[in-house]
């Protein structure tokens, strides 16, 4: 495929107009002068067309799912159905203030209630809360629940430790720290939890073991029932990171696997758009023991009416403003309705098939660290390229020149020069074959081209280390630095 990304020399928006207000902001009756802005907001005055042209040009310098295959491991970059976008923009969905009387938001409460029931069945967990804003926020909220549970049990002083495999998403240990636990990472064996190591590690200090299954190596943790038993025998809680749920929809679920609490990412499995890094929605699912600790309010149905219940004395309270990212709940609801039972199972099977198919083909070119059967994603190691003086990073950048997104790279950390590839169910056979061909062309390219990539994107290789060494983080910094309009910070020609 010949691919060239748009390359607009599009200046930052403030360089598009010399016209900006000067002097004081308008004064407001009853507001003392000391409050009034003495220098009006520094931002350009532009026509609507100028603004639209600017952002349309920027959009053309951005990969998205509707333009390219996006096999970004751990992120489940599947098609975001257009119908969900249309529904989420209905006035009956958008023009709702969270403080409106419940009589005027019965439809919203019903969507929340019904989605919660569906997710309860999909996860095998009795109670659901849609409040957290994203996956990591769900993790953090769940750990606050675990914390509150052990406090009530009088064991918080003792159960201070959260255990995780060394393949865990970085958000897991970070969430555990924020929730006040210490963390301990356990070395994995063959890409999976080493049950003996886990047995040795659990104790009466264990508050929780955090696990994603299938894990970040793309492997199903086949010892899951033993893992659950081990953690529970020690009196700990088992946490399910739902980032990889897509692979097991309708096959198994966290409830059946013995998890006590879970988060799901609606922006992964349930196809709500990632928006360039958010919004997400991080659903919480809890078993009967932890359900009383879920955030308030809970949506309850009494008769034919829905209402908000704040009377949950054990609840951790609020983890954000409002009931959750309702706009995304609605999209996930549409996705689940249209797929239905059989559709969701097909989602999982096709995603797993796609990944195994591409894994088998690319496995002929680069080593695959663990056992061959994977779930939603697979790992490759770029280590053999090192002898050519080529790194995984170079390969990732070279793939961009093929008009496909790069895989997740250098994660999980247990695999040297890791590439983590995920091909969700919405990628066709043809797209997969093209992806394999693109990957092979990249591998077969000259070392020099690999190191020089990308060349087809709107800008060439960026030295991110240097960017961090001398951070320029806003227009104010550029002004202070004296970067001229149209110029690049410190952009000496090589």
């Amino acid at each position: 495929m010949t691919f060239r990304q748009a390359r607009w020399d599009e200046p930052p928006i403030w360089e598009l107009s010399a016209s900006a207000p000067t002097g004081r902001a308008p004064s407001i009756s009853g507001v003392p002068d000391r409050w009034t802005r003495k220098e009006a907001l520094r931002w350009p005055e532009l026509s609507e067309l100028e603004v639209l042209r600017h952002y349309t040009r920027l959009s053309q310098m951005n990969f998205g799912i509707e333009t390219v295959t996006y096999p970004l491991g751990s992120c489940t970059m599947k098609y975001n159905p257009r119908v969900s976008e249309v529904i989420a923009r209905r006035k009956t969905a958008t023009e709702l203030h969270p403080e409106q009387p419940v009589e005027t938001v019965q439809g919203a409460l019903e969507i929340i209630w019904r989605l919660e029931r569906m997710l309860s069945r999909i996860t095998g967990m009795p109670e659901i809360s849609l409040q957290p804003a994203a996956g990591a926020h769900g993790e953090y909220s769940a750990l606050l629940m675990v914390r509150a549970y052990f406090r009530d049990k009088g064991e918080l002083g003792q159960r201070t430790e959260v255990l995780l495999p060394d393949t865990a998403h970085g958000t897991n240990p970070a969430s555990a720290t924020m929730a006040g636990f210490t963390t301990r990472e356990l070395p994995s064996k063959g890409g999976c939890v080493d049950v003996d190591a886990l047995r040795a590690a659990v104790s009466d200090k264990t508050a929780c073991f955090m696990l994603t299954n299938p894990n970040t190596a793309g492997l199903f943790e086949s010892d899951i029932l033993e893992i659950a038993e081990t953690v529970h025998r020690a009196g700990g809680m088992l946490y399910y990171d739902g980032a990889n749920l897509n692979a097991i929809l309708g096959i198994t679920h966290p409830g059946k696997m013995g998890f006590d609490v879970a988060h799901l990412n609606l922006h992964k499995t349930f196809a709500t758009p990632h928006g360039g890094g958010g919004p997400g929605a991080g659903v919480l699912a809890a078993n009967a023991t932890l359900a009383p600790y879920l955030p308030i309010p809970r949506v309850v149905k009494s008769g034919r009416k829905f209402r908000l219940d704040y009377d949950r004395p054990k609840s951790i309270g609020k983890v954000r403003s409002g009931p959750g990212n309702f706009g995304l709940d609605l999209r996930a609801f549409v996705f689940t309705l249209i797929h239905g039972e059989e559709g969701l199972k097909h989602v999982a099977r096709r995603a797993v098939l796609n990944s195994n198919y591409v894994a088998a083909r690319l496995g002929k070119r680069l080593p695959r660290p663990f056992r061959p059967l994977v779930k939603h994603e697979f790992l490759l190691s770029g280590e053999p390229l090192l002898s050519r003086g080529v790194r995984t990073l170079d390969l990732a950048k070279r793939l961009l020149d093929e008009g496909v997104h790069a895989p997740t790279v250098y994660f999980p950390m247990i695999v040297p020069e890791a590439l983590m590839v995920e091909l969700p169910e919405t990628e066709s056979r043809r797209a997969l074959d093209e992806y394999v061909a693109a990957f092979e062309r990249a591998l077969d390219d000259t070392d020099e081209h690999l190191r020089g990539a990308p060349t087809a994107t709107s800008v060439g290789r960026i030295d991110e280390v240097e960017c961090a060494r001398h951070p320029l983080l806003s227009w104010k910094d550029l002004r202070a630095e004296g970067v001229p309009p149209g110029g690049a910070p410190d952009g000496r020609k090589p």
Partner: protein
Amino acid sequence: MVHWIPDSQRDEEEMLRAIGLTTSDELYSDVPRKARIGRLGIGAAQEEGEAVRTVDKILDRNRPFSRFANFLGGRYATRYLPAAVDSVLQRSEFYTSYTPYQAEASQGMLQALFEFQSLWVELTGLDVANASLYDGATASGEALLLARRVHEGRRFLVPASLPWEERSVLSNYATGPGLTVVEIPFEERTGLIDLGRIAEEVRKGDVFGVLADVPNGFGHLDDHLFELRSTLGDLPLIVRADPLALTVLEPPARYGADIVVGEGQSFGIPPSYGGPGVGLFACRKDFVRLSPGRIVGATHDKYGRRAYALTLQTREQHIRRSRATSNICTNESLIALAFVVYASVVGPRGLAELQRGLAERARTIASALAGLDGLRSPRFEAPYLSDFTIELTRGTASEFLERLRKRGVLGGVPLRDPRPGAPDQPERILVSATETVDDKAIAKLVSAASSALASTGGSK
């Protein structure tokens, strides 16, 4: 028929054969029998058209605020949004993309986020902004944690006028590291923070930070903020500020804010029953390496061209893991984009004029209500912008608002902690002005309020 999964059985069979399998069940040979499930019981698939009808039927049970004389506001705005904003959000290159890890292929989103950061820096007067957090309340929580990183102590001071939701969120952020949120009472007449009490708490010691909000939970501008800095010494001052207010008010850095957070939903997207929104976060330059969230930096590519990339990532969870400054991964990029597009479409003069107009409207509403027997409007004597608080002297806020609703009026946000066991609370309502509030709507509010109060016997 679902066309979201490419529909070809033959392809699937060939792909299975290519990996040495015959049936798709074999893809799950690694899932133990005992962990398998039967039916989910979520119902059969619906055609797209059928699903749309199903969902519309449910949504039709909602009554959007636009069908009422609407005085709801506070932390969520119900303002008019120019159509151009959503048209940018609907560019699939923006809304279907992921976090711009691959900078060279993501310059569009990165530049837009750099512009967003720049705008929040200009509004707050601080040095550095990040590329967004979840919402205003969680941004306050992250600010609390940052304050603790730069200052010793275990106690964090907040105004008691802060909405209960935000106090609850802050308590959650405080609980992990074993910190306490202390509520500072407000002055009975003005609703403004009791400066003496802050000084007293600071003298007692063990305080690591203070939060104030502009406008505060009652809608008022707290004049004491100009004196607060000198009371606090080197304690971090966090200001939660409304972005539209900052188009006409002095940037909080001018009165000594070290961190400024906010909710950006009002700039560009509708409230959608509470989310998504966007958390705004800015701080002093010397705090940046301890600060949470993704940050975009300006740099150049290898040809010397201007370029942008995510930067200072060694603070973040995917690198620093348990020692990260925050667990945040997915943030609110698309809403950050909406924020900067909205501000640019309306323009700096338009924004300031909008705020001025809403403030004038709020004064009209406040004085129209002031004549009624049975409520105090505004309840507090202090300057305000688009929002102000009324207090009922008889009846409850919930009955009052219910009576208004039946007459087609959404009267405002009840300022009440709904949790059972919350202490007795005065019957206060936050009333807000939006562009849709015209003289007719105000007349409707006054008439509905007057009849609601008339039918409420006795004084409280």
